[in-house]
């Protein structure tokens, strides 16, 4: 264990940049080895991080594009775009069909599209993205370690993830899946689509997730540099730690749930199928026991990024460090006992509903603490409006809306009305897209120079951020209104009353797509060879360890194992002359 004794009473001297400029630059980890094998069999957490970044972004693109397709369908109340598309596709495959035939298939096409969208977004994008990409890259750097505790396991995790992803893609092309990402029985045991390969994919992905979680937990416990006490860890590390705990505790339950579902479908053992004497609602309990904690697997890393963005770009000590760190842990614990709030109208007992509603509100309080602390961090800071910070501020805006609307859903009588309407759709996009993904994009910009040693074009980035912000809110805000008026979710066709709102939403989605494609473009463009403008090792003036080494880092991260004497938010700009405010 790192020595807790070394923890000094005051937080010590502010960190000056420790990068030793007198030393000649060493080759970065990219240059240390070459060739495809140096990637495919790498044990370097940084390379794995880059590989995760690339693959999750590819899946983000696939899932996003399927959203664009079904949003286009929702431009009109009756189904007409997908039938047209199906007809064109069939024509291209050399089996022309009439528009009526195409129309008869298109309800299922819509259902497959939103299932692919939801399942890929959840299992292949949002759960692995931040831990896999940024967690892998940054965790050892932030702790002052040479690598994660089990580099081989880390590599295995990545390839297991890829295997699971292949199963998913196979599902996509072999008939698709139409159960929704929730796999509710008995529909999922009856439908003719590829449920087995999809659940097998999710099962495998679960293993990857568990292994990553174990690896990170051990790394945080055992690999901290001398002097890196628990309370000197950056909040991103705390967030990843809480995430890892949930991953390790909840994912096995998902694994067993999916296993039971597969067995149910192949052998018909009958525990979920009412026709065979089973209980269909039991599946929902199993599923949400995992999937509610999973929503915090999705958001906690986003919280972690947010803490870094806000502190570094306002150059101020984060407000309420311990409260933020420990509230992550509190959220991790409480999140295991609120799953029933997805089932208020499912026919579970009233008492269960009341208990789950109460606990749901309990989990909102630690989240509130975080939001207030971030805002308080801005107070008397020195706020720079560069792109990472724009995303950080955007996160505060959108996530707060998402969180507050969670309160509507946690309220029993109100959820009876709102359950399974677009209100829920809007809620979870505000927390997942507006929370995690926005924070993730901010994080990518923040650590881009760290990861690649290049800087993107700031002006383009600002335009991108604006498009994302406008597009996102246009897409999803009026979905709250629509849901409140009773527009059910997972509807291929709808009553004409809602058309104006759906059109608005689709326009928003197009703007959002343009914004994201724009973002991907300038980021990739910045990587080109000719962009050799030297990037400072520490462009934002960050004080945590990952900034105290070369950018991109050398193969073993640090020249010498760093000795930590101070916390991660002791910026040199902090005015310590008065020292009264502090305590």
């Amino acid at each position: 264990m790192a020595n807790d004794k070394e923890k000094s009473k005051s937080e010590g001297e502010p960190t000056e940049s420790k990068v030793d400029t007198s030393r000649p630059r060493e080759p970065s980890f990219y240059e240390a080895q070459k060739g495809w094998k140096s990637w495919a069999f790498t044990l370097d957490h940084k390379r794995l991080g880059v590989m995760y970044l690339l693959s999750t972004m590819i899946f983000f693109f696939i899932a996003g594009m399927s959203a664009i397709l079904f949003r286009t369908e929702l431009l009109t109340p009756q189904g007409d775009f997908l039938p047209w598309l199906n007809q064109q596709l069939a024509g291209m495959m050399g089996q022309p069909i009439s528009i009526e035939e195409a129309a008869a298939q298109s309800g299922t096409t819509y259902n497959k599209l939103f299932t692919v969208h939801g399942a890929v977004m959840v299992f292949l994008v949002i759960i692995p993205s931040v831990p896999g990409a940024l967690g892998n890259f940054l965790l050892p750097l932030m702790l002052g370690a040479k690598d994660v505790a089990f580099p081989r396991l880390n590599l295995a995790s990545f390839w297991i993830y890829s295997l699971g992803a292949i199963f998913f893609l196979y599902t996509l092309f072999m008939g698709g899946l139409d159960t929704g990402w929730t796999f509710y029985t008995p529909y999922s045991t009856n439908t003719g689509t590829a449920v087995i390969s999809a659940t097998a994919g999710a099962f495998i992905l679960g293993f990857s997730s568990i292994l990553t979680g174990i690896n990170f937990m051990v790394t945080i416990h055992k690999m901290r540099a001398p002097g890196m006490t628990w309370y000197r860890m950056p909040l991103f590390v705390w967030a990843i730690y809480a995430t890892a705990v949930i991953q390790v505790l909840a994912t096995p339950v998902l694994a067993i749930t999916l296993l039971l579902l597969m067995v149910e479908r192949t052998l018909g053992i009958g525990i979920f199928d009412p026709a065979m004497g089973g209980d269909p609602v039991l599946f929902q309990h199993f599923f949400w026991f995992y999937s509610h904690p999973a929503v915090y697997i999705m958001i906690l890393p986003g919280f972690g990024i947010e803490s870094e963005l806000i502190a570094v770009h306002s150059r101020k000590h984060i407000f309420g460090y311990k409260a933020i760190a420990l509230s992550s842990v509190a959220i991790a614990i409480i999140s295991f006992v609120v799953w029933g709030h997805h089932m208020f109208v499912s026919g579970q007992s009233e008492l269960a509903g009341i208990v789950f509603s109460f606990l749901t509100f309990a989990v909102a309080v630690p989240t509130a603490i975080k939001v207030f602390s971030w805002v308080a961090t801005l107070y008397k800071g020195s706020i720079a409006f560069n792109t990472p910070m724009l995303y950080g501020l955007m996160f505060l805006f959108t996530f707060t809306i998402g969180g507050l609307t969670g309160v509507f859903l946690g309220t029993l009588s109100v959820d009876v009305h709102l359950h399974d309407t677009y209100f829920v759709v809007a809620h979870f996009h505000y927390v997942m897209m507006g929370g995690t993904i926005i924070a993730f994009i901010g994080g990518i910009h923040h650590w881009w120079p760290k990861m690649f040693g290049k800087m993107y074009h700031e002006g383009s980035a600002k335009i991108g951020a604006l498009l994302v912000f406008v597009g996102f809110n246009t897409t999803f805000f009026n979905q709250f209104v629509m849901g409140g008026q009773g527009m059910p979710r997972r509807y291929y066709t709808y009553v004409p009353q809602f058309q104006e709102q759906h059109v608005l939403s689709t326009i928003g989605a197009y703007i959002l797509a343009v914004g994201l494609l724009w973002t991907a473009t300038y980021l990739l463009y910045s990587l080109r060879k000719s962009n050799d403008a030297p990037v400072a090792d520490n462009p934002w003036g960050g004080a945590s360890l990952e900034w105290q080494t070369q950018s991109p880092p050398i193969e073993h991260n640090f020249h010498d194992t760093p000795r930590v004497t101070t916390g991660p938010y002791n910026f040199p700009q902090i005015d310590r002359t008065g020292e009264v405010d502090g305590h």
Partner: protein
Amino acid sequence: MILSMFMGPPTEAAQEVAKNTETVATVEPPWETLHSWAPLPEASTFAPGTETLYMFIVWLSTFFFVVVMGAMFWFMYRHRRRGDDDKTSSITHNGKIEFLWSAIPAVLLLVVFVWGELDFIKQSVLPPDAIDIRITGRQWSWTVEYPDYPGVSFTSSTETPEVVMMVPKGRPVRLTMTSTDVIHSFFVPVFRVKRDVVPGRYTNLWFEATQVGEYNMYCTEYCGEQHSKMTGVVKVLEPELFEAALLEAGKLERGDGEEDKVYGARIYKRRGCDACHSTDGLAKTGPTWKGLWGRTETMKDGSTVTIDGAAGENYISESILDPNAKIVSGFGGAQMPSFRGQLSDEQIKALIAYMKTL
């Protein structure tokens, strides 16, 4: 039930309604008259309560949102970076304020919780004296039956939403619901009620309508291909008119001088055959009815049936009353529910007449 005992011969009012309900299938759909951003009507005794709480949370959220965003934007302006050597404050925490911003939301949330819980309990306790309605969900139609009015039943259609449920204003209604296949969910937005309809068990729901009118009803649990078409219209009537109108509309009786095939076409829609059988040649869940008459079907067990003459009529009526007796190859067995006791011989005859025209 009680009301039906007092039922006399059709009153003038009832005849008046009867004229209106003729148009049941072609009534102007309620969604054409509503507007996108218009507030949702509150048409049950629960609706005002839910709406008040909803608005309370809206204002509570707005308050917190404005406070948080106000502070954020103010700090963004006030403490924007002016130069690279700006000094920043050394504040790291403040116990008092941290306690306050944990405790105040906690208390407010507790208020919201208790309020929502009380309303929820009100919705869970079924009233003893109410009109009973039985609801059966299946892919993808609703069947609504009135145990107190034997023979009265509605089945929704996936083609054009139409009236599938009639309830009187000002009287509690108690629904007992179940499903024959997968989970569905019964939802009427204007009443603010919703409950899952689960196969293998019965779930309950009650409400009391307070406004006469026609309102949308949806299936809100994803149930497959035509989930979005599993909709219908709930009609709320003045209590005096209710019974007569219900009997008139629900009986699905042959109109005066209505031809067999026209009557059959109506049954096809009103009994939900259209959810699985098309009339245009496309196979849906079940075989198409186009050209059914005269066709030779191969069964799962290899035998063949030629649907013609008296044998054909027998086969069809067997298929309706006991669908699993012979299963057409290429289709799943046990998909089609039996309509024994729900369709009279006369109605089957009408259906056959209709099939012959296709």
